[in-house]
């Protein structure tokens, strides 16, 4: 899958620093810009068709939905930039959602932050399993995580069986968290934002972040450069797992009903979100901002289709078409950047 990416990794953000001098910066930033525009158009159109789309209730619903996907997409991005992939996130989400659900069910007094941490811990362990197999087993990430996708799901089923944790079995305090807000912003959304910002800064401004991009951009060179590939890989997968765990808890909070099937098939949607967000599937470039936006875009697509009252049967088709459209636009921007670059440093006058 060779797409020419002629744009420094994450420079959608990084170029902003030099935007003043750098005429290229504008073009470069267009990457995330493209998604924002698409988002704006979609929202505008839907709102015109049905003003209630922007009603507080509806916006809240969309943001809540997006925040879970965004958390997953951020984790996925961290793994993808290292030229790996984590397909097990859906299963990890299911496992943690059910585990935390059960724990909360058994001791309702449990403070929420603890529940969140518990979820992240469980997810983190799953992530570590992936990492160890990838790193020390030398097994390609796609194989490992495809395998653990089946395994984690299987474990969840073995444990849960037909048992379903329903809303009335969960403590009010736990569920109501979905509706609680800070300054009008739901907590779930704040958590998602926090995660995105933290990951974004880490990837852009810290050595380990840049090393992750380096590993994805040219693994051999990364090894030669003395980057401790193993440690970083372990970190990346663990974080991805932990975020999937976090998402699992958020899922439990939001939907209240949890069975063994929770999060089935999410992996592809998450990868789609990242890709739509301009994260290159073969590593080395892309930002968590993009991924988060991608998540938001996908969610908005889903909801607006429901609101626009488009025939049920068309919805899947349209989602697919829009995904293709989004990555197409993204590619166009990339191509434009490439031309601009070639012009700039050609010596031909």
């Amino acid at each position: 899958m060779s797409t020419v990416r002629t744009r420094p990794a994450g420079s959608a953000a990084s170029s902003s620093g030099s935007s003043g001098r750098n005429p290229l910066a504008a073009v470069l930033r267009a990457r995330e810009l493209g998604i924002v525009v698409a988002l704006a158009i979609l929202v505008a159109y839907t709102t015109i068709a049905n003003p209630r789309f922007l009603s507080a209730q509806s916006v809240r619903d969309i943001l809540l939905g997006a925040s879970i996907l965004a958390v997953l997409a951020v984790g996925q991005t961290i793994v993808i930039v290292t030229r790996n992939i984590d397909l097990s996130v859906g299963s990890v989400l299911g496992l943690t959602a059910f585990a935390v659900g059960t724990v909360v069910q058994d001791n309702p007094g449990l403070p929420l932050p603890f529940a969140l941490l518990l979820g992240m811990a469980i997810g983190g362990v799953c992530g570590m399993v992936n990492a160890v197999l990838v790193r020390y087993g030398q097994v390609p990430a796609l194989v490992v995580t495809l395998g653990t996708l089946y395994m984690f799901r299987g474990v969840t089923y073995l444990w849960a069986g037909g048992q379903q944790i329903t809303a009335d079995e969960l403590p009010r305090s736990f569920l109501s968290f979905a509706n609680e807000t800070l300054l009008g912003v739901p907590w779930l959304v704040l958590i998602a934002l926090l995660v995105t910002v933290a990951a974004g800064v880490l990837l852009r401004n810290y050595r380990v972040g840049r090393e992750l991009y380096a590993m994805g951009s040219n693994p051999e060179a990364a090894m030669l450069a003395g980057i401790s590939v193993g440690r970083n890989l372990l970190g990346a997968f663990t974080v991805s797992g932990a975020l999937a765990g976090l998402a699992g808890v958020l899922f439990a909070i939001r939907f209240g009903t949890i069975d063994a099937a929770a999060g089935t098939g999410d992996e592809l949607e998450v990868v789609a979100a990242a890709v739509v967000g301009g994260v290159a599937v073969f590593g080395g470039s892309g930002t968590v901002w993009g991924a988060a936006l991608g998540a938001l875009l996908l969610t908005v697509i889903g909801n607006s289709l429901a609101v626009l009252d488009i025939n049920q049967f068309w919805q899947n088709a349209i989602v697919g078409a829009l995904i293709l459209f989004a990555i197409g636009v993204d590619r166009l921007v990339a191509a434009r950047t490439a031309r601009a670059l070639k012009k700039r440093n050609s010596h031909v006058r």
Partner: protein
Amino acid sequence: MSGSENRLRGSFTRLASWDGAVILVAVVALVVAAAAVDGFGTSNNVTFMVLDLLPIALLALPMTLIIVTGEIDLSVASTLGLTSAVMGSLWNSGMAIETIIPLCVLLGAVLGAVNGVFVTVFRLPSLAVTIGTLALFRGLALVVLGESAVADFPVVFTTWVTGTVADTAIPNVLLPLLLLAAVFTVVLHATPVGRAVFAAGAGEQAARFSGVRVDRLKFWLFVASGAVAGLAGVLWTLRYSSARADNGLGLELAVVAAVLLGGVSIFGGRGTMPGVLAGVLLLATLQNALRLEDVTNEALNIVTGALLIVSVLLPNISRSVRTAAQRRRLRRTPIPQPATPPAP
């Protein structure tokens, strides 16, 4: 150096590598199941197993070539679903089945071409593209057939698909499967196209500099993938005598799993067709045998996953062990002169 001796060593090491291992394991699994699991050996069951593995086996053939070129096609299952749906509606519209079947295969090819265009013309990563078309094609399937399910396909055809050759246990569908498998194997391993496939996967730029028309190659591979998926859709529909929009839902991961289990490198450039076929067979055998032993679905999932990982893990470990041993040997014994051509 003596060529023949090298060739021998070469083929030996290849057999000791993962795809070789998978073939071995598959055979062992078959034997054990036949011996230990009652009901497994019965002709009836054999027929059924083949019918169960048919779609995955079919889809795995072109998927192997695609993955070796370093691309991937996640839309196969949706293509299968869409062709199935179209088959249903065409049948309802009163068209003759003899016309419908080729049309469906053609449709599959067209859908594959759509993927091909996005990947080779617009240069989009195939993983992303086919995730998109995965949703798109499945959606279109719903648009075509909606909630309804078409069932009344001519008995002659449905029974042929589920039937066996004469009164042997060999299912009729095994014949087209074997034929296609043979074709794809030869193409991959013994033709210029196959060489190009490996080259494109292992070093695309170098391949282009050697005159390989990489884009054209990839395009046609996607077309082939689509066409085969179309055929699979037809067979699926006839087997269950039921055309539905949700046929083959989620099959894509099973196919990819089988291919990887067969020792194909997800990064492209490495893999063998026999390995993949063994992978498919192994999965099918386990599923069938374990079910007969009343092993639950959950456990099946876990086994499948574990198998997938182990199949890659074990050869890696054994290889590293071998090289370590070699290193120790070299430390002790004096190193033989590396071959130098005779000075003129």
